[in-house]
């Protein structure tokens, strides 16, 4: 019994390490959030930020903090978390390390929806009040709705196709690639016949923008995050069981198909909401889970919450970088995550290959 209790205490130590990773990430996120709220064209000190939180700040910092920075920072945190947790569970149920929102055609579907809104329904127009914000969308509600419908539509098509003909996990990924190509081709065709301003508005939308959400939209994104997070956490033991293959999972009482389709539907729904408000932001759903798999392994009890915080940290970090590096110009966030995320992903990949 002695050695067995040693095995248990070793394991408990190992679990505590994972909890520690989560605590450290949360602390880092909190610190970065405070930093991001304070920094910008109008500097707000830390003490002033806390005063503002309890309603005792100056009117000027009240406007900056509550009106501008907090919505932006919480949007970054929530969208980063959504992209990361949906990435991690899609990689699990599709048994594909490259699975993320874009794998199922969600991103391209959403782009297509936004393209339709801006060009066909004329929701985008030039706005020349500032150089950094030359083009904006005049009817964000319409664009968001169309983008959401595009994203969720892509997923519904894929799930419906795979239900009619059981194509399996690899088939689903390939169907996602095909559908992405169809949507991006369709978007290009529509853009080809549009005028310059409309095309610019579409391109601007696809760059991604975390600064256009108000508190009302933040609450909608929060609801999407909370729903998805709870759903994934309820299923964490199912994902753990699926790590040893479909047959073993079934023998452990897991309804593999139900888990796969419901997970994808929830993931697509949550990412469609996120993407519809902020545009296309890639790589967070790949990088956050892959870094965290190295720290906590493939135990979804920890991997899901830890990835959520890591995704939030990455997107908030990228957004702060995009805002502050050549302030007052704000670089497009989608381009930053891809430009910085790509090399980081390659580094993870080849470092991982060497370890094997």
């Amino acid at each position: 019994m002695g050695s067995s209790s040693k095995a248990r205490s070793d394991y408990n130590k190992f679990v505590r390490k994972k909890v520690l990773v989560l605590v450290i990430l949360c602390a880092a996120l909190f610190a970065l959030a405070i930093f991001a709220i304070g920094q910008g064209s109008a500097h707000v000190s830390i003490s002033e930020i806390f005063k503002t939180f309890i309603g005792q700040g100056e009117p000027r910092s009240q406007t900056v903090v509550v009106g501008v920075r907090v919505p932006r920072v919480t949007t970054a945190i929530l969208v980063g978390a959504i992209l990361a947790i949906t990435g991690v569970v899609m990689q699990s149920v599709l048994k594909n390390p490259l699975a993320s929102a874009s794998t199922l055609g969600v991103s391209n579907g959403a782009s297509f929806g936004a393209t339709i809104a801006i060009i066909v329904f004329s929701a985008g127009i030039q706005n020349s009040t500032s150089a950094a914000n030359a083009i904006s969308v005049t009817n964000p509600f319409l664009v968001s709705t169309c983008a959401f419908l595009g994203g969720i539509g892509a997923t519904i098509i894929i799930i419906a196709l795979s239900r009619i003909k059981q194509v399996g996990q690899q088939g689903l990924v390939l169907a996602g690639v095909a559908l992405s190509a169809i949507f991006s081709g369709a978007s290009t065709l529509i853009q080809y016949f549009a005028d310059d301003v409309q095309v610019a508005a579409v391109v601007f939308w696809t760059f991604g923008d975390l600064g256009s959400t108000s508190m009302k939209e933040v609450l909608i994104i929060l609801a999407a995050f909370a729903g998805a997070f709870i759903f994934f956490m309820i299923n964490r033991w199912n994902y753990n069981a699926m790590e040893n293959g479909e047959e073993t999972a079934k023998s452990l009482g897991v309804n593999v198909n139900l888990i796969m389709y419901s997970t994808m539907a929830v993931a697509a729904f949550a990412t469609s909401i996120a993407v519809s408000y902020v545009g296309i932001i890639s790589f967070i759903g790949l990088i956050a889970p892959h870094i965290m798999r190295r720290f906590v392994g493939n135990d979804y009890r920890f991997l899901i919450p830890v990835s959520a915080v890591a995704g939030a940290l990455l997107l908030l970090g990228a957004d702060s970088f995009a805002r502050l590096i050549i302030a007052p110009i704000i670089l497009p966030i989608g381009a930053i995550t891809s430009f910085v995320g790509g090399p980081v992903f390659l580094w993870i990949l080849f470092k991982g290959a060497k370890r094997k």
Partner: protein
Amino acid sequence: MINIKDINFSYGKRDILKDISFDIQDNKCIAILGNNGAGKSTLIKCLNRIIPVKGGVVMVSGADLFKMPRNEVAKNIAYVAQKTETSRVTVYDAILVGRKPYIKWDITADDKKIVDDVIEHMDLEDFTLRFIDELSGGELQKVMLARAMVQQPKFLLLDEPTSNLDPRNQYELMKRVKHIAREHNISVAVVIHDLNLALRYCDKFLFIKDSRVFAYGDHDIMTPKIISDVYNMKSDVIEHNGIKLVVPLPDEPYELTHGDGHGHGGINVTSNEHVKEACNS
């Protein structure tokens, strides 16, 4: 007691299993034998509903398995697949997931106690924090067996558990399986190709041929005649130091198999019906 009655399965119009019926007593280990493609793996996947049967009944201690929710099935039957997909998961976590059918929201102290006991029982204490994607084939198979054990099943299904193991690990694993059946009062069904491993550690033998049960019985049915009928291969069944062995003779023409019916240098040929028949004719 496991009662299996009239299991049928087909891919489209091609019958894979037809009217398969047999019983397994508690604490007995049976070997499921037959050619490649005979339907052995399909049979054990049908038994725990990994693939849906076209008809038949499986009773575990009097309870009808096909009428249970999937989670209840998992409390009654554990299964170790032929190939296990590995990932970055520790041995402890890989075993702990065997408690999945019992977990409501999260694991309890009881679950951990059961895992600890199995880890101790299977001598895995030094492995608990190793990642399963870094284990050898033998170690991984032992971990998968441990995972099946924490399911606390009444019926254990193993699909070619020894196929990737070296000889020593093959014997150790099968010895452990037999021990588990006896110690925990579990019925075990093993799909296996090595007739000698089967003879050594299994109590009964189920031969499948042409989608049907060809023969089912204890050691007495392991005869050259049945082996020849099932595998289309000549063999001797001999006894060496009290251990019954099958000696495959794939190359020897039928008539030349030491027609006198006596042993090879001190090895006593106990049963060789084909040889005897050949001599008589």
